């Protein structure tokens, strides 16, 4: 396997525009002769499907939810970055590019990040034109706020529901194309296999989740927009249905997996309360604009927050990072929270929590102003915890939130498997080892609205493909594989539920491959995961039948793939003997506990190739070069 990133030559500012000129085009009248499958209808998938259909391609789209509007992009709260410089505070495409490369701890491709920063501007325009009700100033112009890792206000938002509003914009564009007959939409369909013919991705196998029917769908190209794999930790801020199956099946069919160990643990989530917990809820990073994070100075201080005087509080982010303060990047803020809790200074019943306090903001701005900015988040917090954050500080703790790793893609967003394109969180591309806040929405929409519509044409125009139909032997074989898997799961009839395996996997991963990682812990996880996998295939119990709506079988298939992925994540984390961004190897840290990169040996992307059942995967390397943002130690002090 050779990793050819295909980064255009020339100065970074002109790479994308030159590349757009150099790419092949499909004649407008010929676009209707091509078909594209898009899996997933989040920001990336919905925007891609709508934009490609507008160009004239025949698009078939799939989602596991009952409606494309429900993809988990909808839960993104805080905002979307764009280098508009509407605030006249010194922002520029270059600064957004610089902040993102630095925020990712120098483990992303410069050319991709620059393109992302360039496109950020057009995304806002597109969304406004679609009717996204962004926050406005009294004069009618767009409002901005600040997010972590930046010293400018470049984040556009719609209250605490930015993801919802951007997704509804993309969903409405998609719905328009469905109404026009250019997109065929299959909701409640889950992709279970990739169809590869003559070395190219030509379709998918999808299970109709209502009838259980296993169907082959073929096309000229396949686009995966199936999101991240953070549910490998069981407790995460992801929707319950988010899974790795689509990208994992593609990996097993030959698409390389890039940087699987890069996961984002978000610092501000509502802490775990008990064993029954099924998911964790995020409290938007935007709260760190006005909320102050603190713990008591003394260990084991069990007094309630209002009984702890100012002088006995430790506003540790403001103390450790005076320049960025409470807006330090996510990986740094999460590690700092873990550190103070490990010291025994955590708050709440479990001791795994820190305060996010709005008392100062309420004094400074008044309750109505705080309510206007964050009202829905405060309400959500109150629903879950039965505590009123206007009166007592919120308690927060880090949780799995995003995965920077994903299928490896070249500059055109195509994986190592020709014809298979991967967009949004499902690919590994632009965030390096740590994603900055308000950058995921930007990347999903850049990929979907403004990159894939061009690069898919380049692929289709340059690769004449024979016509195939769903009777092709490879398509039938893929359907058989998927059917057999479902049958095998149903036949085990063991003694443990899928959820109990998922929980155990989550605790193995949180312990061994979570916020802090070390060689011994990773080796221990690598010993436990294969044992768990073996037990799963002997002892899981799945209720019901295959030919019906069966949520039990859906979950079992997803967990089976998570167990396999977990092993690859630990392997990747073990091999990367350095700390960078969200990947913190405890052996590699500066004297004051910051991540210590090893640029001499690890300034590269690791892309793993599946070598077949029972054989270890092969690690390939794509070197990263930094010509525009010189390699430096990240400092937010």
């Amino acid at each position, binding site marked *: 396997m050779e990793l050819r990133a295909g980064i255009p030559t020339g100065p970074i500012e002109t790479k994308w525009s030159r590349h757009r000129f150099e790419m092949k085009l499909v004649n407008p009248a010929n676009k209707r002769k091509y078909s594209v499958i898009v899996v997933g209808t989040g920001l990336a998938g919905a*925007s891609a499907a709508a*934009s490609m259909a*507008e160009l004239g391609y025949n698009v078939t789209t799939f989602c596991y*939810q*009952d*409606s494309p*509007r*429900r993809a*988990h992009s*909808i*839960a993104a709260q805080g905002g979307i970055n764009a280098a508009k410089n509407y605030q006249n505070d010194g922002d520029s495409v270059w600064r957004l590019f610089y902040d993102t490369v630095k925020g990712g701890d120098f483990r992303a491709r410069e050319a991709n990040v620059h393109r992302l920063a360039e496109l950020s501007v*057009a995304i*806002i*325009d*597109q*969304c*406004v*034109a*679609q*009717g996204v*009700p962004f*926050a*406005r*100033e009294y*004069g009618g*112009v*767009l409002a901005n706020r600040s997010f972590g890792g930046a010293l400018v206000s470049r984040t556009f938002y*719609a209250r605490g*529901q930015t993801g*919802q*509003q951007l997704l509804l914009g993309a969903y*409405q*564009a998609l*719905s*328009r194309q469905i*109404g026009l007959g250019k997109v065929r939409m299959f*909701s409640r369909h889950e992709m279970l296999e990739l169809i590869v013919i003559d070395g190219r991705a030509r379709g998918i196998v999808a299970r109709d989740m209502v009838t259980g029917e296993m169907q082959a769908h073929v096309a000229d190209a396949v686009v995966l927009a199936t999101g991240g794999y953070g549910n490998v930790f069981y407790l995460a801020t992801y*929707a*319950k*249905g988010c899974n790795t199956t689509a990208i994992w099946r593609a990996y097993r069919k030959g698409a390389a997996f890039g940087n699987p160990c890069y996961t984002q643990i978000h610092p501000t989530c509502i802490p775990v309360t*008990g064993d*029954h*917990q*099924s*998911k964790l*809820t*995020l409290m938007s990073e935007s709260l760190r604009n006005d909320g102050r994070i603190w713990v008591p100075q003394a260990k084991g201080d069990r007094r309630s927050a209002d009984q702890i005087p100012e002088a006995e509080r430790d506003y540790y982010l403001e103390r450790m990072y005076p320049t960025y303060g409470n807006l330090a990047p996510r990986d740094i803020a999460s590690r700092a929270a873990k550190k103070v809790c490990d010291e025994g200074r955590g708050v709440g019943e479990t001791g795994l929590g820190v305060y996010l306090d709005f008392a100062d903001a309420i004094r400074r701005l008044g309750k109505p102003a705080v309510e206007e900015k964050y009202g829905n988040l405060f309400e*959500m917090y109150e*629903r879950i915890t039965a505590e009123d954050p206007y009166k007592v500080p919120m308690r927060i703790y880090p949780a799995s939130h995003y995965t920077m790793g994903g299928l490896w893609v070249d500059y055109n967003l195509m994986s190592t498997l020709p014809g298979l394109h991967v967009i949004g969180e499902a690919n590994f591309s632009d965030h390096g080892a740590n994603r900055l806040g308000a950058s995921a929405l930007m990347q999903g929409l850049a990929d979907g609205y403004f990159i894939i*519509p061009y690069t898919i044409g380049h692929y289709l125009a340059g690769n004449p493909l024979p016509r195939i139909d769903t009777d092709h032997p490879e398509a039938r074989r893929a359907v058989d594989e998927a059917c057999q898997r479902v049958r095998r799961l149903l036949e085990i*009839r063991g*003694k443990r*539920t899928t959820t*109990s395996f998922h929980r155990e996997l989550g605790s193995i991963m949180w312990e061994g491959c979570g916020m802090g990682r070390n060689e011994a812990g990773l080796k221990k996880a690598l010993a436990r995961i294969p044992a768990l996998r073996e037990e799963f295939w002997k002892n899981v*119990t799945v*209720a019901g039948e295959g030919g*019906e*709506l*069966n949520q*039990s079988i859906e979950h079992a298939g997803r967990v089976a793939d998570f167990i396999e992925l977990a092993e690859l994540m630990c392997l990747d984390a073990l091999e990367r003997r350095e700390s960078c961004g969200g990947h913190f190897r405890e052996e590699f840290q500066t004297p004051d506990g910051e991540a210590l990169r090893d640029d001499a040996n690890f300034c590269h992307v690791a892309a793993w190739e599946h070598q077949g059942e029972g054989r270890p995967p092969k690690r390939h390397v794509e070197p990263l070069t930094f010509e525009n943002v010189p390699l430096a130690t990240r400092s937010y002090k």
Partner: protein
Amino acid sequence: MDLTLNVWRQPNSASAGGFVTYEAKGISPDMSFLEMLDVVNEGLILRGEAPIAFDHDCREGICGTCGMVINGAPHGPRARTTACQLHMRSFRDGDTITIEPWRASAFPVIRDLVVDRRALDRIIQAGGYISVNTGSAPDGNAIPVPKENAERAMDAAACIGCGACVAACPNASAMLFTAAKISHLGLLPQGQAERSERALRMIAAMDAAGFGACTNHAECEAACPKGIRIETIARMNRDYMRAALRRRPPAASAGGTG
């Protein structure tokens, strides 16, 4: 807490359904309603019985996937709260809780508490958008939007498409859902070009899907977990009336012979 649940069980859309009683024991008040159902389902799976099928995904009240009628109220007893955000501290030890799917002929039951809500998607597909192809947008600040209008548009746009309004309505009307989208787009300058056409087309799609009409019960507003107001229905009716009265023959084709 120990609870008794009366749950609607129905194997598929073709079979008849009925209530089945389950005991839910040792439930913590900190559990969400769906986590309580998870506990019941784990027990059913271990006994080899089919778990209670219910739709859910984000479990933070924003995706609109979950929805069930709890003791006669869509999403349960707490105002402005989806079933996934409802916590068991809203109930008392020993309570009996009845759980049913959304009931509306436009929402056929698929299994147990899972219903088919694609009719709502079809209403959006008929006109719930602004027709702007990717790439043809002017600068985001080119058209100022008064803050008041942006805020009102956002109030309406907060709809999560869960269908509780339909389940609450004695007529199984989807007027609140449809009106929320018509209001959101109609309050913004970008939505003006298609405003009349949008109202006509979305209402036609709503009628075609088999939803009932509005007779001002306002049950929808009471049940809406996102606080969408029935004033949106008044706005929709105005748009509809105006569009119906002003309906003109189509404009002459703009196409030339080239």
